[in-house]
C-alpha cells in the first residue's frame, strides 16, 4: 500500500518536503472557502481548487479549475480534500481517484453507505488512501493541516491521536497539549459506519510511520473497531503506551447518537464490550476526556505534567 507519510510530507531532501501540494474540491462553498483560508494560514500548500462552473477564477490567490483532471495535471498534486455536500461526494471522490489522487480527505457528513463502499473499492484498485468520510481530517502540528480542525488545541510533539470524533479529537489534543504532551499527528478516521481508513489501518500507518512515544485512541460506541484494534495490539505485541477513551457509555441501545456509526445493537458496539477487550490488551480507558493525559503520564512512567 502507498505510504501515507510519503504522500503527506515526503522525504527530507524533497524540494517540496512538508509542502506537498493539495487540491480543494468544493473550494467556493462557504465551508470550503473558509477552511481553505484557515489551512493556508496554517502553512498547508494549497495549489488548486475545483468547482465546476467557476474555472479560471481565484480564491485566496488559489486558481480554480473546472475538473479534478485539469487541477491534478496542472499542479501534479496527489492530495485532495473534499468539501462538497454528501449527495455529490461519490462523483467528487471518483473524479479525484481517477485523476491520480493518492490521499483523499473526505470531510462530508451524511454520505450514504453504498457510496462510501464504492469509494473504498475504487481506492483499493487505485492504491490510494481515503480518510473519512465524516472526518475532521489530519493535522501535523506546526507543519500543516488538511481538514477543518481549529489550530489552537494542537502543538508539536511525540504523541499520536486517532479519533472517531472531531470535537473529541480537539478536546483530547487540547488536554494533551496543556499537559505538555505535544502531538506528532492527529488523524480523524470519521464517525461513519464505513471508514476509508479503518481504525486498525490508521493505527498501523502511524506506528510504522511516525516518531511517537504513545498513541491515544478516541473511540465511541458502535461497530467493533476498538475490539479489533485491541486484539491487534495483543497479536502484534505493540509495546508503546496506548490510552483509549470511549464516548457513549450512557447512550441507549438502538439509538443513533449523532454519528451514523454510533449505534449499539445488543452487545454489538457497546462500550462494555470495548472496555473489556481493551483491558485484555492492557490499554487503560479514560472515564472522561480530561483523564487521558493523566493515564498517559502513568503509562509513560514519568511525571511530564507540569
Amino acid at each position: 500500500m502507498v505510504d501515507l507519510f510519503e504522500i503527506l510530507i515526503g522525504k527530507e531532501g524533497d524540494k517540496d518536503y512538508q509542502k506537498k501540494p493539495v487540491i480543494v474540491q468544493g473550494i467556493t462553498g462557504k465551508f470550503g472557502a473558509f477552511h481553505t483560508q484557515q489551512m493556508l494560514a496554517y502553512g498547508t500548500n494549497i495549489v488548486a481548487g475545483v468547482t465546476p462552473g467557476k474555472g479560471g477564477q481565484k480564491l485566496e490567490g488559489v486558481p480554480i479549475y473546472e475538473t479534478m483532471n485539469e487541477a491534478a495535471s496542472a499542479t501534479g498534486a496527489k492530495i485532495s480534500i473534499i468539501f462538497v455536500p454528501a449527495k455529490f461526494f461519490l462523483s467528487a471522490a471518483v473524479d479525484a481517484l481517477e485523476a491520480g489522487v493518492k490521499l483523499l480527505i473526505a470531510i462530508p457528513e451524511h454520505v450514504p453507505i453504498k457510496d462510501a463502499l464504492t469509494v473504498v473499492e475504487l481506492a483499493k484498485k487505485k492504491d490510494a488512501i481515503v480518510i473519512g468520510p465524516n472526518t475532521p481530517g489530519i493535522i501535523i502540528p506546526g507543519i500543516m493541516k488538511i481538514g477543518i480542525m481549529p489550530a489552537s488545541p494542537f502543538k508539536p510533539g511525540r504523541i499520536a491521536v486517532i479519533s472517531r470524533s472531531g470535537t473529541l479529537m480537539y478536546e483530547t489534543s487540547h488536554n494533551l497539549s496543556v499537559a505538555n504532551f505535544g502531538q506528532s499527528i492527529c488523524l480523524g478516521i470519521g464517525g461513519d459506519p464505513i471508514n476509508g481508513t479503518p481504525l486498525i489501518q490508521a493505527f498501523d500507518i502511524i506506528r510504522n510511520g511516525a516518531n511517537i512515544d504513545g498513541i491515544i485512541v478516541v473511540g465511541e460506541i458502535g461497530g467493533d473497531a476498538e475490539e479489533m484494534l485491541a486484539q491487534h495490539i495483543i497479536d502484534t505485541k505493540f509495546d508503546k503506551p496506548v490510552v483509549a477513551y470511549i464516548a457513549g457509555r450512557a447512550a441507549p441501545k438502538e439509538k443513533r447518537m449523532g454519528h451514523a456509526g454510533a449505534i449499539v445493537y445488543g452487545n454489538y458496539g457497546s462500550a462494555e464490550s470495548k472496555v473489556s477487550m481493551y483491558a485484555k490488551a492492557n490499554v487503560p480507558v479514560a472515564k472522561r476526556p480530561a483523564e487521558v493525559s493523566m493515564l498517559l503520564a502513568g503509562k509513560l512512567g514519568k511525571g511530564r505534567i507540569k
Partner: protein
Amino acid sequence: MRLLEYQAKSLFAEYGIPIPKGITSTDIEQGRKDASVLGFPFVIKAQMAVGGRGKAGAIQKCQNADEFELKYPDIMQKVVKGEKTRAILLEKMADIKKELYLSLFLNRGKRCFTIIASAEGGVEIESVKNQIIHEVGLGNVDAKTAEDVGKQMGLKDKPLTQFIDILQKLAKITIEKEAELAEINPLAILGDESVVALDGKVIIDDNAMFRHDELRKFQEISELEERAEKSGFSLVELDGNIAVVGNGAGLVMSTLDMLSDNGGKPACFLDVGGGATTETVYEALTLISKMKKVKGILVNLYGGIVKTTTVATAFIKAYEDKVLDLPVFARMSGAEADKSKEMLKGSRTKMFDTIEEAINAAVIEMNKNG
C-alpha cells in the same frame, strides 16, 4: 430508519418474498373489521421498533372474538424497552415445521455486506447456533452463492429452491432500498414445504433517504425531530430532566456519560453540528424549550474557531425573546471566554471553565428542585 414488521413485510411482498396473510390497524374498530375479514384464529402482533416482543407479551395468539376484545387493547398499550406499540398487525397463523434464520447486514469491520443464515432460527441473533456466514461485497447474491448457503443449512428439494429465491430477493431489497440490515427471523418451512417470512426487520441507511422518496411513507418522525433535522441537528430524546447540548456527536455523548456518572438524568442528546453560531445555538434553545420535561440545560461547546461571545449572544437573545426560561449550565472553551462571562452576568446562564464544574452545578440545582 428501522421499518416496523408490517412495513418490512410490505417490501417483502413487493419483491415477491412470501408472507402470511395479514392486516394492520391502529384502533380496535378497524381491528374488528380486519378480524372478520381475516377470520379466527390469528396472531395479534404489536408493531414496535424493538426486539423481544414475544417474551413481553406483545405478540399473542387469538382464538375468538372474546379474546380479541381483551387482547387487542392490551397489546395496543404495551411498552417494550421504552418503545410503544405504533400499530397492530393481525396475521394468519402458520403451520410451522421448522424455523430458519436469514439476514444480510452491513459488516462494518470487513466493509462489505454479509449473509448470516442458520437452520436453527426463531431466537434472537445472539443465540442463533450454527451460523453460516458469507461475505458478498456490495450485497449482490447470485444463484450459486444462494444455493451453497441453502445446502450448508441442510435444505433440499422444494424448500431449497424457495430459499434460493428468497435470499436473492432479500439481497435485491438490500441493494435497491439501501438497507444496512434485512433480516427474516424466523423464515419458516411450513407443513406443505413452502417457505414463508414470519417476521421482518429492515433498517434503511438514513443517509440514503434522499434517494428513496418511496420509503418516506414509513418515516415516523416527531415534530421536534423534524425540526431538529431541518436545522441539521441530531436529537435523541431521553427520560431525564437535563437537556444536553453541544457541538459534535462525540462531545455530546461524552457529556451525557459524565452527567450520568454524576447522578444527573439527561433529557435529550442534542448535537448542533461541528460549528456553533448564534443562530444554531438559539435554534437549539428554542427546540429544548418545547420539551416539557426539561428543567435545566447543560451546554458543552468546544470553541476553537468559534468565539464564545457568539454563543453567549444566543443565550441573551433567547432570554430577551422569552424563548428560554430555564437555568443553563454552560462550558465553552475558546476565544473571549472572559468577555462572554461578563456578558452573561445576572442572567440565568452560568458559565464554567470545565465541563465537570458545569455538571456538578447542574446536578445540585436539579436535586434542589426535587
